């Protein structure tokens, strides 16, 4: 019992620290990717390639003046950012990142807790997350903020239906609500993933579209459309209160990407079994990155590249070496596959932001009620029929 509490505390601390770092650097990745899409360098001044930019942003946000406008509804105005960030961070607690591992004699799962209603828990928590945005918009006592809050609640109610129905289809196939067992049913090869199960890529696409809307991302970022609404629901927020909304948005993005990985892409299982050499993929990737960095370091474009690039090359080669160690493989390989799949979906989020224009509000509503929702219902019905006939 006591060891359970200690292990849980350690796991909570690790997951929290990793999540916070990922949140900060996800923003750096987003700025960099969008900058490269638009053929400009992006953050470049703070640290090498702007790598210390997130740290600078955090210091800036913490030390900024925290304004409390006199005309707001104080209790709800203060509760809203807290609610948003709590609900966003809560759902990560049921996400499994890998199988059981053994650390110093203790066997434990790479997951905080496994619920047998894990998927429903995430849906419940994310449906509570809308209050943060809606109440922030209302309590600010500002018409732009109110419009942003209204848009957000209408959008989230509408897109939650196709999202839940798209989630239900792979659940029917895997026949479980536990995220851990869900991955278990997709083990083995690439074609065991729910994504390649019949026409489940339809569910995957519906899920992704609805997830973009649920996380208020482009092209569905109407609640914070800056050319119409100043900044939408967080117009009146400054300093860390504003940062909480920002962090909540990115945390929701990470949760949704993890959920897509677990539901459709087989979680932490490799695309093909280790016997056929899937364990050498990360080694090859990191070794290749190391060799490229080293060769560029030999003919540097700039003066300081002579030192930084070889240093990074050596680091990459060391990481490649670590992936070869049999002691590390049982927990590093699943983690690598999970992060690779989640990272690919996160990259898609950023890619879409860099390329697609924003929807008009009536198009947004028409799209979900007239196309996405009927498509999700039909998809769920057909999947249910096939599952019932086959079993």
């Amino acid at each position, binding site marked *: 019992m006591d060891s359970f509490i200690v292990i849980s505390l350690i796991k909570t601390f690790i997951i929290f620290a990793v999540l916070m770092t990922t949140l900060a650097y996800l923003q750096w990745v987003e700025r960099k990717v969008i900058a490269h899409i638009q053929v400009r360098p992006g953050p470049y001044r703070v640290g090498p390639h702007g790598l210390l930019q997130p740290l600078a942003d955090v210091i800036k946000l913490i030390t900024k003046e925290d304004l409390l406008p006199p005309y707001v509804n104080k209790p*709800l105005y203060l509760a809203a950012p807290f609610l948003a960030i709590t609900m966003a961070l809560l759902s990560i607690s049921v996400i499994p990142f890998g199988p059981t591992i053994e650390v110093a004699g203790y066997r434990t799962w790479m997951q905080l807790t496994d619920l047998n*209603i894990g998927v429903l828990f995430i849906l419940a*928590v994310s*449906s*509570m997350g*809308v209050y943060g945005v809606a109440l922030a918009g209302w309590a600010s006592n500002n018409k732009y903020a109110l419009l942003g809050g209204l848009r957000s*609640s*209408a959008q989230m*109610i509408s897109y*939650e239906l196709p999202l839940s129905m798209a989630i239900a289809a792979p659940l029917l196939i895997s026949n479980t609500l536990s995220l851990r067992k869900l991955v278990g049913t997709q083990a083995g090869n690439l074609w065991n993933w729910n994504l390649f199960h019949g026409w489940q890529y339809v569910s995957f696409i519906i899920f992704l579209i609805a997830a973009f809307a649920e996380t208020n991302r482009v092209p569905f970022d109407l609640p914070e459309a800056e050319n119409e609404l100043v900044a939408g629901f967080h117009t009146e927020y400054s300093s860390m209160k504003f940062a909480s909304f920002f962090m909540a948005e990115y945390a929701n993005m990470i949760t949704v990407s993890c959920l897509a990985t677990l539901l459709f892409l087989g979680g932490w299982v490799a695309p093909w079994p280790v016997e056929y050499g899937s364990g050498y993929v990360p080694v090859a990737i990191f070794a290749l990155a190391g060799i490229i960095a080293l060769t560029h370091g030999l003919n540097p474009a700039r003066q300081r590249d002579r030192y930084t690039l070889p240093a990074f090359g050596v680091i990459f080669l060391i990481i490649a070496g670590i992936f070869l160690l049999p002691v590390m493989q049982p927990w590093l390989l699943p983690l690598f596959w999970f992060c690779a799949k989640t990272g690919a979906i996160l990259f898609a989020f950023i890619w879409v932001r860099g390329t697609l224009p924003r929807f008009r509000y009536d198009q947004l509503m028409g799209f979900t009620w007239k196309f996405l929702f009927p498509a999700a219902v039909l998809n769920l019905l057909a999947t249910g029929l096939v599952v019932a006939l086959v079993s």
Partner: protein
Amino acid sequence: MDVILFLVFAIIAVLAAINVVVQTHPIASAVSLIGVMGSLAVLYLLLGAEFIAAAQVIVYAGAVMVLFIFVIMLLNAGAEARKGRSFMASLLGAPVLIALLALLAWFVERIYPEGMGVHFGGFTGGSPESIGHALFTTYMLPFEITSILVLIAIVGAVVLARKELD
């Protein structure tokens, strides 16, 4: 542990429920109602009905109350003025409440004379499988009738909204 959690969340539920009535502003009442729904979900969870708990949060706290708040925000309803209480209400309120509670306690005592205490975690039929099984076998007819009722309500809402539009 279970008893402490039960007491904490039962008290939160009751206080939030009282707050729903006491608050004059509709948004404050609605937020308190979310508190009631949330603590009820925790009570279901304590009793071992995890699916009901999740459904409670998803449906009531997550969907119904969002709609409530949405409508309140859309109408931009302000705080209500507190009217003077009627003489009858202040005179009869407390005695009638006590009488009702006593009546409730008496009926519970009569229906369950053994007075069996609640065993937290003793109930294991709260999984999605058992709920689905119960819904589609034992309670098939009530379940279908309820579905039809909901369908009629939806059609009715659409018809009424149509009439407004014309």
